[in-house]
C-alpha cells in the first residue's frame, strides 16, 4: 500500500514537471529554441546523419555503441578522478 502511494507521488511530481514544460511550450517560451540538426552535445558514432525529415534505417549498431562509449567515458573519468582525489587526501594525511 505504501509502495503504491510512493509510486503515485512519483507520477504526480513527474506529471507536474511535464505539465510545466507543456505550459512553457504553449506560451511560446520553448518554441523559439533552435536545435542543431542531427547531433546534440556529446559523442555519436555512426548513423545516417540524423536529418529530421529522413526516414531512419534500422539495425545501426553505431548509435548504440556511441551511447555506451559516451557513458563509459563519463563514468571512467569520474571514477578515476574520485580515486585520484582519495589518494591525494590519504597522502596529505
Amino acid at each position, binding site marked *: 500500500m505504501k*509502495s503504491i502511494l*510512493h*509510486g503515485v507521488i*512519483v*507520477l504526480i*511530481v*513527474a506529471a507536474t*514537471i*511535464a505539465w510545466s*514544460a*507543456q505550459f512553457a*511550450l504553449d506560451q511560446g517560451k*520553448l*518554441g523559439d*529554441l*533552435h*536545435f542543431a540538426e542531427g547531433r*546534440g*552535445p*556529446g559523442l555519436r558514432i*555512426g*548513423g*545516417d546523419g*540524423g536529418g*529530421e525529415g529522413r526516414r*531512419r*534505417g*534500422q*539495425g*545501426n*549498431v*553505431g*548509435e*548504440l555503441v*556511441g*551511447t*555506451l562509449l*559516451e*557513458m*563509459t*567515458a*563519463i*563514468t571512467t*573519468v*569520474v*571514477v578515476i578522478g*574520485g580515486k585520484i582525489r582519495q589518494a591525494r587526501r590519504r597522502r596529505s594525511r
Partner: protein
Amino acid sequence: MSDVRKRNAWNVVIDTAIFVAFVVATAPRFTGIALHEWLSIAFAAVIVIHLVVHWQWVITVGMGFIRRLGAAGRFSFVLNLLLFIAVTLLIYSGVAISRDVMPALGIDIRGAMAWRGLHRAFSNISVVLIGLHVALHWRWIVNLFRRQSRTMTK
C-alpha cells in the same frame, strides 16, 4: 537468503534492466522506432519502481539536504533531481512525438515539432547524467557484484 541480500539482488536486476533499456532505447536507429517507443514505455514503468525501491534514500537525503548534509550528499541529491527532471521530460517529449505507441493505443497526440528537438536534447542530457549517476554509485555496484559472485561460488 537474508532479506537484505534478496533486496540487493532485486536492486541489481531492476538497475541492470533500467541501464540496458536506456542504452538500447537511446539508439532508435538500431531498434527501429516501434521498439524504441515500447521499450521507453517499459523504461518509464521500471523508473517508477526504481524510485519506490529507493524511496527511503529520497526522503532521508532530501530531509538531510534541507537540514545538514555533506557536499557529496548534496551533489548526489541535486544530480538525481536533475536526472529525474531530464528523464521525465525525455519520456513526455517522446510521448508527444510518438508515431507508433500512442496511435496503437488509440490516443491521438499531435505534439508540437519543438518536442522533437527537446526530446533529442533531453536524451543527450540524460546520457551524461546517467553516466555520472553510475559513477557516483560505482563502489556500491562493484561491492554488490563482488558479494553476489562470492555467494554464487560458495
